[in-house]
């Protein structure tokens, strides 16, 4: 196992909001072409952690960070690293579908190009491949110029996935991507994740234990007890975390005894 190249890894990640220590010494490695699920009770710092992976805390003045996040061997928090460049390699899908309301379906897919000022030789092709990879092409191919908000919630979420994929990221972060969706749409998104998995590194936060077991190769269990900062209690292959957890607290959580 030691020969595996880790594309993305977190080393001793700590996060503070003002005086509050929210995450303590998180060490996780995300191997290429695998799906990692982050689970844990509400408020334990899963979103906070996943946002450190593409430097999304930049906008919160009170946020403080300690540790390293290595992407292809380079610390994305290193001196002189442009967070915008980091986000081009590490895409993100949010909890609530959030297509740009003023744009059409097609414009949403291409919005990353516009925002980053990147050029692409063949936009039409990029739109199609991105939408195909997000498994929504067949549903929208005849209405690419309709407003993005004319789609259903589940379709909007897959459009948001397509929007991220259009930038060709190496890593895709998903923070509870299905929590606002119905079971049918959830299944579609899960299928999409499984189709994408062989090509990229995926990190997904979920409250749904079945979902973690369906999509994730490995799982990390976060916990923050009695006001202590959140930390990783257990991390390993999904099967092992769910079937034979080492820590009794993991066992309680995955079997629905708390959280």
């Amino acid at each position: 196992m030691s020969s595996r190249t880790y594309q993305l890894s977190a080393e001793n990640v700590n996060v503070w909001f003002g005086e509050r220590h929210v995450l303590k010494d998180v060490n996780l490695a995300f191997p290429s072409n695998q799906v990692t699920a982050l689970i844990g009770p509400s408020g334990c710092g899963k979103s906070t952690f996943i946002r450190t992976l593409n430097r999304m805390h930049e906008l919160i003045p009170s946020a403080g960070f300690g540790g390293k996040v290595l992407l292809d061997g380079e610390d994305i928090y290193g001196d002189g690293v442009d967070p915008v460049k980091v986000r081009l390699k590490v895409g993100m899908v949010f909890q609530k579908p959030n297509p740009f309301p003023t744009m059409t379906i097609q414009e949403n897919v291409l919005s990353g190009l516009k925002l980053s000022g990147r050029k692409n030789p063949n936009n039409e092709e990029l739109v199609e491949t991105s939408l195909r990879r997000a498994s929504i092409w067949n549903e929208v191919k005849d209405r690419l110029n309709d407003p993005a908000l004319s789609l259903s919630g589940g379709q909007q979420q897959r459009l948001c996935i397509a929007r991220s994929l259009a930038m060709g990221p190496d890593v895709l972060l998903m923070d509870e991507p299905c929590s606002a969706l119905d079971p049918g749409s959830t299944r579609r998104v899960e299928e999409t994740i499984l189709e994408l998995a062989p090509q990229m590194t995926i990190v997904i936060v979920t409250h749904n234990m079945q979902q973690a077991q369906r999509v994730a190769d490995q799982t990390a269990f976060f916990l923050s007890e009695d006001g202590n900062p959140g930390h990783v209690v257990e991390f390993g292959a999904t099967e092992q975390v769910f079937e034979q957890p080492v820590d009794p607290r993991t066992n309680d959580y995955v079997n629905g005894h708390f959280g």
Partner: protein
Amino acid sequence: MTVNADSTQRRKLATKPFAKADRIFFGVARAAAYSSFVIIALILIFLIGRAIPAFQTQGIIDFAFGSTWDASASPQKFQLGPMLWGSVLISLIGVVIAIPLSISIAYFIEFMAPKVLAKAVTTIVDLLAAIPSIVLGLWGAFVFSPIAAGWAKMLNQSFGWIPIFDNPEQNFLRSPFIAGIVVAVMIVPIIASITREIFSKMDRDIINAALALGGNRESTLRKVILPTASGGIVGGILLGLGRALGETVAVLYVLNISFDINWGQVLQARGGSVASMIISKFGEANPSEISALMAAGLVLFMFTLVINSIASYIVAKAQPWRK
């Protein structure tokens, strides 16, 4: 059957207020609401009544668009054209200056400043709105005009070849340019506070998504924030425009009011403003001129009313995604 029909008959679910306090409160609220209609109607009736003689002697079209105002000629000529256009010109200058300023202020408050500073800036901008316009006029005349005249001179020297910056007389005081800036100072608080309100209600996830897609601050503002907020901002701009059109005293102090129509040479020392003209002539006007001034007020009133209605319509309707 009759029993059925009775029990399924449609009744109103809303009830009249029972408690006495409620009834009094409802009455007061209703009276206050209706009284605004009544007041507007009364003002209109008064203005129309007083304006009719002027419209009859001058003709409505000539009155609104002609360009001579002479109370000593016979027959007297009262034509509003240069003032009406002057009001529009000054307001446009004010709005053009105020828009980028207001949007920058709103962006700074909502997306850049730490909480304490954001509060402070908000308060200062709101204070700006509270400055009485006479104070602004005096400041404009004695403090600001000489400074702005210096800017105007620089503009003229660098860009004098563009017709709007032409000024053969080289007198840079009391121009529409200066009046426009003073008006901008008055409407920045309006546009900035509406824009800030819209920004603060925007879905943060949309902004986060833009950043996550590799946007920087500037492209996020231009491609995502402004388009999403545009309806509300345009509404705010039109409200500011309404205020600018009606501005009276402050403009009077910094503008040389002239019926020699100024189409757009903004640095030259002549311009128009309906409201300021009314106040400058009112003191010495004879009865027929007063009727003409009332008519001028009526025209301005209608104009502003139209702008404001458009504004509220846009604010309400232009953002279908904000349910």
